[in-house]
């Protein structure tokens, strides 16, 4: 059983279709990145998963359950929306104590101390949250979301509005949660670099549809136009003339000792190496060229613009 399952999900608002036949799954312990431009339907998907909105069609399950009317299942889920869910007039400790009461956390004092230490807010525990910076509120919001040790935690734009230092802290914190507490993390983010660093799987939503759904590794290495970079002991441009005529090489770029070839067939790499060695070139290194998640994202989001 997957931690999150979405099958054939559709939802419209006032006749406007926001989600159309969306399907994906998130395995236990995965850090899953849900990507898409503004208005793509990411938050709507999360709201449906959390039982806040009903789907028009399709089925959603979190830990095998429908969260809409299941208090027990909701007790196993953590949530961080753009708003941190904190009351400005209450202290950090009182805010956490409130949620500890709602979720029935045992030994709340101990857990609150542990989490305040984790997010480096121990010395501000009794200060009103209204006096905190945006980054401090975000950190406290994350502590609140994981207070009850949820099995799945939904984070909606956790780095939004944070400076680079705070973004890094949030990123490290998410990775630590995934590793140490074995939580499944459902991350809705615009920070593609952040997603590439911490997510194991991603889905790209655009125009109400899933445009790509795969592991980050597969997405960044697999391509319709696979490429390899060969580091030679000099003479990259001459090697380009040699292999550029081969039928499976669709593109070639020689720059100093580096030769970058785009292949028509991903299995043709050994043939390319054999051709280079046969022509007398000395090879120092061969690596499969990967693309950034940003390139892949833009490719899919751009592709969706013409197809609603």
């Amino acid at each position, binding site marked *: 059983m997957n931690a999150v399952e979405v099958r054939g999900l559709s939802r419209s608002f006032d006749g406007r279709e926001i989600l159309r036949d969306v399907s994906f799954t998130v395995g236990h312990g995965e850090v899953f990145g849900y990507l898409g431009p503004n208005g793509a339907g990411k938050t709507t998907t999360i709201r449906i998963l959390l039982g*806040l909105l009903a789907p028009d069609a399709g089925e959603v399950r979190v830990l095998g359950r429908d*969260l809409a009317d299941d208090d*027990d299942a909701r007790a196993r889920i953590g949530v961080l929306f753009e708003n*941190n*869910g904190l*009351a400005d007039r209450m202290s950090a400790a*009182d805010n956490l104590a409130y949620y500890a*009461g*709602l979720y029935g956390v045992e030994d709340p004092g101990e857990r609150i101390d542990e989490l305040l230490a984790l997010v480096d807010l121990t010395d501000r525990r009794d200060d009103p949250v209204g006096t905190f910076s945006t980054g401090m509120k975000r950190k406290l919001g994350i502590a609140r979301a994981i207070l009850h040790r949820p099995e799945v935690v939904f984070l909606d734009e956790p780095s939004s509005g944070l400076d680079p230092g705070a973004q890094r802290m949030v990123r490290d914190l998410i990775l630590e949660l995934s590793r140490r507490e074995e939580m499944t993390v459902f991350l809705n983010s615009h920070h593609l670099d952040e997603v590439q660093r911490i997510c194991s799987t991603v889905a790209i939503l655009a125009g109400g549809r899933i445009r790509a759904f795969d592991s980050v590794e597969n997405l960044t290495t697999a391509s319709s136009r696979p490429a390899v970079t060969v580091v030679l002991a000099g003479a990259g441009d001459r090697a380009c003339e040699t292999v550029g005529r081969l039928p499976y090489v669709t593109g070639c770029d020689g720059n100093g000792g580096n030769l970058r070839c785009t292949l028509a067939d991903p299995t043709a790499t050994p043939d390319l190496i054999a051709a280079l060695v046969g022509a007398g070139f000395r090879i120092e290194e061969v690596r499969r060229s990967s693309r950034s998640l940003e390139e892949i994202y833009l490719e899919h989001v751009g592709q969706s613009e013409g197809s609603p």
Partner: protein
Amino acid sequence: MNTFAVIARREMGLALRNRSILISALIFAVWFPVMSALGIAAGAGDDVTVLAGGIATITLPVGVFMGYLFCADAFLREKRDGSIETLLCAPVSLQRLWEGKAAGVTVPAYLMTLISAAVTAAAVSTLTGIPVAADPLLLLHLAVVVPVWIAAAAGLIGAAQLALGMRENQILGFVFIFGFIFLIVALQGAVPGLSVTTEGIFAAVGFALLALARFIAGKVTKERIVRTIP
């Protein structure tokens, strides 16, 4: 501690930390009864029952207004800033959330109303020289009828604030207040004075309104709340 108590205690704590609402409530709790006391003292002469009835008459609208005032913090603020969405994901039913919040609003609103009643009684007693605070029917009114009406008002206003958008809330807030005051005035016109019968009727109507509030709150859905978050 059960979730009802957790929610109610938090709302009370937040109300007591909200200086601007507390100051507004205190000004209203003192200013309105002092002005009313002049009218009560002038119109009732030295009849203790009529004086007590006059005090009872003004405590209900004061209580309803206090409920409205504190609802703005407990229901509307969380909707405006979006934190209600996080609460809706907690393992607590929407009905329980509404009950806890309504109770958390009722307690500070009731305390403010008691302060207001005490100020009115003191002002009337000072102006007439007749002690009215110990009237048993007035005490019954303050102990039973007033809190039930405040809870009903807080429950109804709270449910409406959860279900409606910001603009509708601005309009309907006044409609609710004037609706309640119209109902109180109409009831006081139909069954005037302070008697066991009068108090029984007011208590019965108050409980009916509370039941209506509970029924309406039961019809509010999470989807309705989420879709009206600004």
